[in-house]
Every structure is written in C-alpha cells, then in structure tokens.
C-alpha cells in the first residue's frame, strides 16, 4: 500500500513489514507505512487494533518480531528509545511522563545535559525553550511547577520536551482524550504550525472528527492489519467507520418522547472531599422518565462523586436525594438496587465485576438474596445458571457459558454482562458512568441502543460521559459539571459542542446566551 501522494516531499519515516506477536495474539501483522515531511498521519483504529503497539515499536519500547524501520533514510536500531530520540523521533504518551515536583524548565531539560559538567546552563535552556514556545505558539511558564498545570498545559510541555530534543517526527498517542474541545482545537493549530516547519506528525486516535480536523492522511488499522491508507480529503466518516469495524454501523437515533414524572431528584446536594473544595457543591438535578440526562465535563469535576452517590456508595453531607418521589435517607448499594436503580459503574473491571468468579455468580451479585436464587442461605445454583443462560442469550454476551470465568471476557462482553445484570429487571433509573469507555464501535452502538430501549420503556437515564459526541447523540438534556457544580439542564438542541466546551472550562457566563430565561442561574 503506497501513500496516495506520489513524489512530493521527502520521506522521513518508512515502516516495512512490521509484525509483532503477544502469545496467541497477532498485535501487528505485516504493517508498512511511509510518512513524509510536513504530513500529519492519523492512525485510526478501535481499541486493540494495534495502534499503540505499532508506535511503541517505532519508539523502541518493543522489538518487532519482523520488519524494519527507516528514519531519514537510515535504518533505526530496534528496541532503543534512545536511538529513536537520536534519530529525531519524539513521543507524547497518553499518560504523561512528567515529574510533578519539578518546574517546566527542569522537566524539559532533564536528561539532555551531561552529568559530568559542574553546573547546568539553565540560561541557555530557558532561551531555547522560550524560542521554541514562541515559534510554535506553545505557551508555557518555564518556572511553574508541573504539578500545578492543567492537563492541556502538561501536554504542551510534553510536546515542547520532544521539540527541545530536536524531534522531527512527533508521535502523539490519543492526544485529545483528556482535552476539552477548545484545547483540542488549540492542539490542532499547533500541529499545523509544526508541519509548516517541516515536521511530520503521527497521531493515534479512535475519534473520527479529529481525523478530519487535523490529518492529511489516514491509515486504518483493524485487528493488527493495515486495512487502508487514504488522503483524508478523499474519504468520509461512514467509509472510515466501516473500515475500522469491518461492517457498517448505524448511529443511535433516539425517538422524541415527552418526559414523564421525576425518578431522580437531587436538591442542594453537597459531598465534602475531606480537604479543600467539596466534590459536589449544592447540586440540583432532576431526571425524568423517558429522558436521558447527560453530564458533560472534564474528568475530576465531581462526576465520580455524583455516580457514587446515586450508586449508594456515599451519602450526601447535606441536601436531599429522592427516588420516585421518596427521599432516600440511608442509601446503600443494596437499597438502591431494591429501589429500581440500575447502576453501570465507571470502572467495570475493578468495581463492576469479580473477575475470578464465574459469569453466573456475577450475574446474581446484586440480588442473590432473592428467593429465586437462594433459600435459607443455600444458593439455588441450578436456577441461577438457568437465569444466567437466559441473560447471556438476551444480551448477546459472547462467552463459553455461565461457568466461564468472567475475567476471560472481552471488555465489550463484560459491559454486556453488567447491562444484563442491571437492565434485565426493568429499572426506573439507570446510572450509566462512562458506559462505552474503551469499547469498540460495535459494542458502543449495542450499549447505546440498550440505553435508548430502556428510555423508551420508561426509565430515566443519567449518562455521565467524557465523550461529548456520545452525550449529544443520546441525551435529551445536557448539564455540565465544573468544580463540583452543575449547570441548569440545557436542551440538547439548544447547545453546541463549542458552547459545551466553554462551559466545561468554567465560562458559565455564556449560560445567559443559551438560557436567557434563567439569567441568575450561574
């Protein structure tokens, strides 16, 4: 597969026949790619398609089983990040590799100076950093502690660190996962400045709109194989989605329904954090039947506390939580389940399921006291297995059977298992915390359609997600979490992505434009 741009600028990177095997899994299967100076290549693929593995091979974290890499016409020795750095390859990892207790300047200069010199030349380092920062519009304060920076600022530091080391090829692993829409746009601006200067950029993503916003070329990986390379301008979303998943995918289409009576009401709910700002600060929220309420926000703005509150794991310091009109005095998880709350936890591995136990044992975990599953303290194992078989079939959980160990299931099937456990009983309220995080497109659309089915059946859905596309696709109303507070409910058709982005960054003054009737709300 050759790059669609024939001739053109110089080829800076050439991967040829890269294969990598982890046990039975073929993570990369004979992948060949070329990258030219001034090009932004998007590496698109679902989770587990092999994107990160490929970039880790390129940067020397892994050694490929087969294949060669050439950077600037010279072969790159395998398995050495140092060699990659010296060849001009810089990588910005998904999880930043910065020391919180050091200044920006120190973080950038660390490792670039000889250990045998008497004193470090910080003056020169600072000049060089400021020069780079100005040239590419990457604004940073050299003396600020990294621990005090926002996520977007930290990412800028990471990029500057790579540039400081003379990177001519920049690899970004899911760079927008932690950014607000505005910060993402800023990042894409930076990428354009970098490529104008002749750098080449590879960025890894599974989000379609970023591919179109930022890339010149897109390479699609599926199950370890490179399935297509296209000039971004010559392709479209539907086609890329199909290439990524291997079949066509329909987006969810919620039918309009008029909301019914309230199922969840929060009135002035505050949850203290034990130090400093409260996790939730006087939150009011109502979720009605036939309604999906989406909570948008950068993570760490109170969403976790809200989810734990509705799950019954924590109780409000002050304020009131009511379900179906009756106040919950001493909520605990079992009580919430009894009151008809279906809870989909944020972290399905550690909070949702007991990996070491069988599928059927996990399926009855919320209601093993029911007469259907136990009598006089003795488990009715036959009945539980029969029930499990039914749920497995109804929710399309791909597993060998009810006795399979849960940790052997894929992420998507684990999520279906949790859906089966909670949705099989006709809930009144569904708490869905990051319900599709880390899932592939097929599983995502399954989860979405299940949530919409439940909404149609009369449940209220509280959807907490960091994925704005997901929220706008599903939610009837949106509210934004910022510093433990929630905006009033905004109808989804009256708010745009950029407005949500501003609200996520704390610019609540724009609420006046969106909701003129509730000026005083913020």
């Amino acid at each position, binding site marked *: 597969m050759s790059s669609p741009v024939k001739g053109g600028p110089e080829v800076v990177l050439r991967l040829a026949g890269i294969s990598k095997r982890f046990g039975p899994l073929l993570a990369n299967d004979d992948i060949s790619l070329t990258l030219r100076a001034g090009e932004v290549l998007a590496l698109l693929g679902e989770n587990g398609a092999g994107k990160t593995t490929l970039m880790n091979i390129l940067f020397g974290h892994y050694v490929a089983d087969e294949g060669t890499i050439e950077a600037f016409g010279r072969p790159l020795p395998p398995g050495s990040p140092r060699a990659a750095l010296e060849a001009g390859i810089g990588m910005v990892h998904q999880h930043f590799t910065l020391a919180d207790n050091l200044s920006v300047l120190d973080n950038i200069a660390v490792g670039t100076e000889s250990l045998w010199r008497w004193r470090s030349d910080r003056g020169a380092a600072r000049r060089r950093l400021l020069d780079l920062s100005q040239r590419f519009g990457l604004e940073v304060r050299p003396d600020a502690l990294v621990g005090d920076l926002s996520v977007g600022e930290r990412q800028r530091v990471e990029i500057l660190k790579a540039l400081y080391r003379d990177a001519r090829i920049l690899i970004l692993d899911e760079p927008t996962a932690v950014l607000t829409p505005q910060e993402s746009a800023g990042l894409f601006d930076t990428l354009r400045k970098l490529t104008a200067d002749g750098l080449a950029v590879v960025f890894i993503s599974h989000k379609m709109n970023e591919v179109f916003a930022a890339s010149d070329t897109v390479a699609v990986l599926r199950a370890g194989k490179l399935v297509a390379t296209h000039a971004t301008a010559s392709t479209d979303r539907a086609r890329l989605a199909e290439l990524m998943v291997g079949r066509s995918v329909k987006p969810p289409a919620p039918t309009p329904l008029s909301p019914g009576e309230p199922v969840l009401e929060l009135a002035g709910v505050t949850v203290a954090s034990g130090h400093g700002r409260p996790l939730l600060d006087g939150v009011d929220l109502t979720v009605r039947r036939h309604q999906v309420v989406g909570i948008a926000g950068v993570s760490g703005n109170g969403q976790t506390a809200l989810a734990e509150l509705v799950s019954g794991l924590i109780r409000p310091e002050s304020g009131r939580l009511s379900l179906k009109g009756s106040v919950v005095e001493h909520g605990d998880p*079992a009580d919430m389940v009894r009151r008809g709350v279906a809870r989909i936890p944020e972290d399905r591995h550690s*909070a949702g399921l007991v990996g070491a136990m069988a599928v059927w044992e996990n399926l009855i975990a919320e209601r*093993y006291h029911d007469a259907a599953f136990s009598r006089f303290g003795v488990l009715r194992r036959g009945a539980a297995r029969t029930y499990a078989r039914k749920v497995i079939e109804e929710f399309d959980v791909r597993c060998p059977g009810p006795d399979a160990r849960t940790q052997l299931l894929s992420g998507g099937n684990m999520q279906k298992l949790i859906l089966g456990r909670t949705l099989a009983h006709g809930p009144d309220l569904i708490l869905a915390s990051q319900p599709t995080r880390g899932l592939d497109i097929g599983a995502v659309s399954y989860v979405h359609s299940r949530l919409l089915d439940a909404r149609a059946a009369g449940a209220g859905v509280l959807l907490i997600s960091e994925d704005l596309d997901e929220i706008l696709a599903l939610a009837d109303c949106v509210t934004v979490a910022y510093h433990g507070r929630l905006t009033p409910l905004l109808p989804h058709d009256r708010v745009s992505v950029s407005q949500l982005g501003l609200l996520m960054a704390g610019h609540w003054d724009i609420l006046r434009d969106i909701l003129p009737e509730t000026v005083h709300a913020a």
Partner: protein
Amino acid sequence: MRLEPRTDTPLALRLLAPVGAVVAALALCALLVAWTGAPVLRAYGLLFEGAVGSRFALTETLTRATPLILTGLAAAVAFRAKLWNIGAEGQLYMGALAAVVVGGGMLDLPAWALIPVVMIAGMAAGGVTLLGPAVLKVRFGVDEVVTTLLLNFVVLLLVSMLLEGALKDPMGMGWPQSAPVVEAAELPKLVERTRLHGGFAIALGLSVLLWLVDTRTIWGYENRAVGANPRAAAFAGMPVTRIMLRTALLSGGLAGLAGAAEVCGLKGYLTLDLSPGFGYSGIVAAMLAQLHPIGVVGAALFIAGIFVGADAMSRAMPVPNYIADVLVAASLLCMLVAGLLARYRLRRG
C-alpha cells in the same frame, strides 16, 4: 525466558502442582540426608514406614494431623478473604486456655453436654482473639500480618503467666501446667489403645462442611466475592465489613478449636509446649492445599506424616528429626513455585 499468564488452569495441573512440589522438596532434602552419610532411599523408606507402616504409626499420624487440619482450615478460610491471619498459633493457645478454664470443673455437666460447651468456648476464645486485629484492619487499615503475628507472643506470655499463677495445678509438682480437664470434657478415643481421638472426626467433618458452605451457600458466595474483589462486592451491595469480621471469627474459631481439641483429646491439661508450631504449619497446609478445604486434609496428613515418620527414622539412623522441619518448609517454597507455574506458562524469548 519469560512468564505468560495462562488463561485457564486445567484441573489436572492444579492437582499435579502439590505433588510436584512435594517431589521436588524430597529431592532437595535428599542432598541434606546424603550429607549426613545415611543412604537416602533407606532413610525415606524408614520415614514412610514410620508414618503409615503400622497401626500405631498410622494412628499417630492421624492424631498429629488433627490440629493441623483445623489450623490449616483457619488459614485457608482467612487467606481466601485476603485476611492474612498469621496468628493461628496464638488463637490455638487461647482456645486451649478456654478449654481448661471451662472444662476444668466449673461446670458440672454430662459429657454429651460438656464437650460441645468446651469446644464452643475454645472456638469463641480463638475467634475473639482474631476479631481485634480484624477490626483494626477494616476500621483503620492496620496491617493484620503484623498484629496477628505479634499477638502470638502476647498470648504465649499470657498463658505462661497464668500457668505460673492463677491456673497453676496445685498437684503439678511445681511444673508450669494447668489442672487437667474433668473426665466428662475429654473427647472419646476413636481407636482403642491408641491416642487417636474424636477431634480428628470433628476436623474431617468441618472440612467437608466448610467446602459445602463455600460452594453452596450465600455465606461462601459472599466470602469468595469479598476475597477476590472487595470493591466490586461492595458495589454490588454486599456488607463487606461484616463479611470480613465474620470470616475473622470463623478463622480464629477454627484455630481455637484446634487448641481445645488438643487439650480435651490428647494432653488433658495445658502446658506451654502444647503446640510445636501447629499454627504456623497450618499455613503450610493451607498453601499446599491451594486454600481448598478438602485439600487441607490431604496436606495436613502429609505434613503430619513427615513429622511422625521423621521421628521414627531418626531413631534408626543418624539423621536428626529436624529434617522434618526442613522438608515441610522446602515443600512450602516448592509449592509457591509450583503455584506460579500452574498459573503461568514458561516461554522462551
């Protein structure tokens, strides 16, 4: 060479792991036996014969296995819930202490009533001893390995003080020992003219009962869930703290029962050498059994056989009976390796 996790461990491998570990331990210790100049095969032959070769040898092994089964179950129950109870030795002595107090004549009951009362007293004493560290763990996050281990010494000193003072037998010729339990509190003998007593039947019955509880009841279900993933158990609505404390009571109770059964079945009174480390050997038994309640019986029989057999062997050959300690310790280490190999696959490259 590197290790790769297996997706599933076949049953055959799980059964083979302890056998392999024991064989490896025997092979390692053969070097030590050979060092003493004794013929290795004959030494092991004598050890085997001394453990199971006669009616006397066999009943001695079973007698020795009785407290090991109980302390092994105590460790298995606790470890499954990730409660690292290293204090079975102390809980055993607390159980024995309760047995000599309650069974020492303060209750005038017939045997069918007194024996259960004394056993339950022993269990209660052992359970309460572990409850303290367990409460500290769930409330304040105090490491129970440290508290339970150190409590062993506290208990031994307490027993020592009582045996020199309040509980000292006036007829004991000045030895630090308690007055014997009354006849009605003595466990019946299982086989005439041997030392094998009813405690063995209790231990066997309890291991089956615990296995049934573990696999068939809500209790066992909750225990396994809390042990494997307390966060998920709490999220699903299980009362995690209560389950932890319940497990602590049960674990300590089993160790306490071991002490009460030793007093009422074998020794008759309490001394400071009631247990040659049954509490610690119980941990080995539980590990060899991979924490399976039925497996604990087999593991305890193996360890008891090694100790009894080594005594017999050391009488006939110049091999000290300390070889038993080395063998048991070596099989624990080998078992840890075997457990790793059962869960992982070794790959080259």
